[in-house]
Structures are given as C-alpha cells and as structure tokens.
C-alpha cells in the first residue's frame, strides 16, 4: 500500500498557500522544519479554547485536565520510539536543548580532563558546540569519525578510535545535509563494547524513519517536535532510566524539586527533575497529536514514500549539467538532496527558485565543518517529507534550468 498523497496534502493547509498571486508554495524545506497538519493545529487550538491551565500545581479541573494531557502526550511519544517507560522521555525545547542537557548534566558529572568523546564529521552544530564548550571547560578530548567521499561514516577509523576507550560517542542518526542514514545499532553496539555511553541526534531520523530506541539500545536519543509535524518550542530527550536517575538536575526552579529549604533543595524524580519551570504545555499536546498523526499513517509508509521521491529527485537532479549532489545513493539516505550548481552560489539558486514559490534552503545548514570537508562554502538543499510529490521535484528541476538562464 502506498500513500494517497493527494489526501495527505489536504491535511496540510499551508500547502495551498500562494506565495504570490497565482504562485503556489512548493515546500522543499522540511528538513529545516516540517509543515503541520490540521490535526496538530486544531489540537493546540482546542487546548487553548477549552483546557488551558498551568500543570502540576493546581487541584482545579482545568489544571488536572491540562496535566493529564501533558502526561498523555509523553506516553504517546514514548510509544512512538518504543521507549519502555514514559518517564524516560524528558520534554525539552528541541534537539539542541536535549543534547545540551546531556552535556551539562551527565557529561559534567562523569567526564574529566583527558577523557575522550567521539563525534563525527557530519554533525549539526548542535552536536558539536556543546562538546566544544565542554572540552574548553573540562579538557575533554574530541575525536571525529571521518566522512568518506560518498558521504558515509568511516567505520574502520571509528573502530580504531574505540581502542582509545572513549567515555562517550555522540552521533547523528541521519545527516541533515547528506541525508546519510547511519548504522546506529552497529555504532552503538561497538561503543558499548568499548565501554562508552551513546547519544544519538535523532532530529532527522525520528520524523522520517521508524525508530526503536529499545532495539537500538541507545542511551540517549534527542529529537524535535517541529521536524515531525509538531509545533516549535518542544522536543524530547530519551534516556535510559538508570542513567537519568543518576544524573544531576539541569535547570533549577519550580517543578524540578521535591523540597526546598532556604539554603538547599532536594531534586524531584525523573522526568520532573529535568523539567524546571512552566513547560510548553499546549505544544506538548501538539507534539502528541503529531505522533498520533504519523502513527495513523505509519512510519514505514512515510519512509517508503520519501524513498521513492528521493530516488526520483536524485535521478532528475543528476541529469542537469553542472549539478553535483552530495551524499550517498538513495538506498542509503533519507529525503535530502544537497547540491551545488556550477558557478552559481546557493543563495542565488534559492532566490531564483523562490520566484516560482519553490522553498529550498541555501547555506551550510548548521554543518560548517562538513561543508569544509567537501571544500564548499555552501549548498542548496531540497528536502522531502510525506507530502512531497514528484511534480514538486519536476518544478525544482525546471527552476534550476531557469537559474541557468539567468546566469547565462
């Protein structure tokens, strides 16, 4: 069974938007943030219409209902990635905050000067800078799994790095530039065999693939609602219970405490321990609705559809003289096509495409070291999701021919 894309597109009101009179948006920027289905928009709307109250503290009906909705969403999210216990899901603002949470709590409690942290050359800045900051503060050593010419991780070098007994391996499950889907289970297994803890940046994998944190045996897994049909302002950190229980708290304040004295406090239990202050409540409801929406469609189907579109897009893009697409072949990647076009800067490509309503991203996509590795300052990135069509890929290709015309 394949997806009925025409019907799915009706779920996303923004896809009917005209960016200029007569010019419909062709949204090819889902890797940056996905569009939101009506079900999500309405769930949040409904929350504000009927349920809005602060959670935890109140005994009144609205507060109880809001608290229940906040916790129900957590249960849905846990199930979606097959976490065994909803308490293993910590709400954060986004992937970035999830990774920082690990860096500020687990890492600062467990790593000391000289300890080794392994990252990869294809990381988003959000999985680089927190570790740079830790390295500067603690003298922790950083090493990087190299990226091959084809955009894959060099696992042989990884294995030799493991001989240096790292304490932590933190890597992206799917690259937001190359689209590469990394062999997460294998990377984690090897890390565990070497005695290291693992952090997985799941910002791109959770929206696009069926992710099972239990089967992967990941220790920490970070993702954002806004890239998976949910709202901005909320994300999650999955962590194994035993690790979360032993970690010091992150931010201090309300809700994260059991008891406060004038000169001391006792932290709350997980997950409240990591959720100080009033959280994004309506957004949690939207997050839950997004998970329901994707579950209803089936992540296997989402992935299969994106694969079909990506395969088609790579084929069509590579036909264009002067276009070079980065990353592995379609069977090893998700719905991302980052490319350069001879003699034309990605900014100009994106600007000219925008005239036809085609929304792509231009720049280093928060992965500057990766671009440096490939010797290019920037790429143009088209990315696909469950609502993307071959017709949109055709428009992209036509648009690139127009770019060619402008630049002669």
């Amino acid at each position, binding site marked *: 069974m394949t997806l009925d894309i025409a019907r799915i597109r009706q779920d996303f009101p923004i896809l009917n938007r005209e960016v200029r009179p007569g010019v419909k948006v062709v949204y090819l920027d889902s890797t940056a943030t996905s569009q939101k289905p009506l079900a999500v928009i309405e769930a949040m709307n409904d929350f504000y219409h009927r349920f809005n109250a602060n959670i935890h503290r109140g005994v009144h009906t609205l507060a109880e209902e809001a608290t229940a909705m906040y916790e129900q969403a957590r249960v849905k999210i846990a199930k979606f990635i097959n976490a065994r216990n909803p308490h293993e899901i910590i709400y954060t603002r986004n992937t970035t905050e999830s990774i920082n949470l690990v860096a500020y709590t687990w890492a600062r409690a467990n790593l000391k000067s000289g300890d080794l942290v392994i990252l990869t050359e294809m990381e988003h800045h959000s999985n680089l800078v927190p570790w740079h900051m830790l390295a500067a503060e603690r003298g922790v050593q950083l090493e990087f799994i190299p990226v091959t010419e084809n955009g894959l991780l060099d696992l042989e070098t990884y294995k030799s790095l493991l001989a240096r007994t790292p304490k932590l391996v933190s890597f992206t499950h799917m690259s937001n530039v190359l689209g590469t889907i990394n062999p997460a289970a294998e990377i984690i297994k090897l890390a565990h065999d070497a005695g290291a803890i693992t952090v997985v940046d799941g910002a791109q994998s959770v929206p696009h693939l069926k992710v099972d944190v239990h089967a992967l045996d990941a220790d920490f897994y970070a993702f954002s609602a806004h890239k998976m049909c949910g709202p901005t302002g909320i994300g999650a950190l999955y962590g194994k219970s035993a690790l979360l229980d032993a970690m010091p708290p992150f931010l201090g304040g309300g809700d994260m405490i059991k008891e406060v004295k004038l000169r001391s406090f006792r932290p709350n239990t997980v997950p409240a321990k990591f959720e100080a202050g009033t959280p994004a409540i309506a957004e949690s409801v939207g997050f839950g609705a997004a998970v329901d929406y994707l579950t209803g469609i089936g992540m296997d189907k989402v992935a299969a559809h994106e694969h079909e579109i990506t395969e088609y897009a790579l084929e069509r893009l590579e036909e264009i003289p002067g276009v070079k697409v980065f990353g592995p072949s379609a069977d090893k990647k998700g719905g991302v096509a980052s490319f350069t076009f001879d003699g034309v800067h990605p*900014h100009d490509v994106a600007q*000219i495409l925008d005239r036809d309503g085609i929304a792509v991203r231009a720049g280093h996509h928060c992965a500057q070291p990766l671009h440096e590795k490939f010797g290019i300052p920037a790429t143009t990135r088209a990315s696909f999701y469950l609502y993307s069509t071959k017709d949109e890929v055709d428009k992209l290709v036509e648009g690139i021919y127009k770019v060619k015309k402008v630049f002669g």
Partner: protein
Amino acid sequence: MDDLYREVIIEHYKNPSYRGHLDPHDISFADNNPLCGDHIQIDLRVDESGKVTDARFDGHGCAISQASADLLVESVIGKSVEDVKKLNKQDILDMLGIELGPVRLKCALLSLKVLKAGVYGLCEASDELVE
C-alpha cells in the same frame, strides 16, 4: 521579474574588475556573513593625503555580495578615507540599483561593513557601520 539579477550584477559577479589582493597594502580587513558563509576581504592603499589610491577585494559568496564588493571597490578608488567613512547602505543600493529584502541586504552590505571596519581600524566589524 529579473530585477535582482540585473545584467550589471551578473556581469560584475562573473567578471569582476577588482578581484585580487594588494601587496603591500595600508589597510586590509576581512569578515564573513555567518548566516550564509559569504566571505569578503578588502585591501586598500592610501597615500599621505589620505586618498585611496588602489583597492581590491577577494572572497566568495552569492552574486549580490560579490557584485556589490566589486562595485564598491571600484567606487572608492580616488576617494578620501573621510569620504569612505561616510558611505552608507543607500549608496550600495544605489550602486546595485535594486531593492532587497532583509536577508539579501546583509549580503549586499557585507563589503561595506568590511571596508568601513578597515578604514576605522576596528578589530571587529559591526552591523552599525552600515546602518
């Protein structure tokens, strides 16, 4: 429809007249636009009377950033440093002859920012230089 990509911009982008370096130089400054990675370096020679006698730019980036650098460098040769300090956003837009949204404006103004940071002898270029 091709407003942004007027022929003069494409021409200055593809065949810049002032791309290069000056060695020796009296002033040199470089900066980039962190959003898109555009990079511009500008070298100047200034004589005793404070007049710019020669100028070159180098770098990489979009057509708007590179064309505006070429046009700007061309325009400052022969000007006094004091006059260079007075250049502003509108001068660049007049040179380019286009209207720009906020994102692309940053591309267009990068070279002016670099130039002014250079002539003022600053350690770091700031957006206030090109308001």
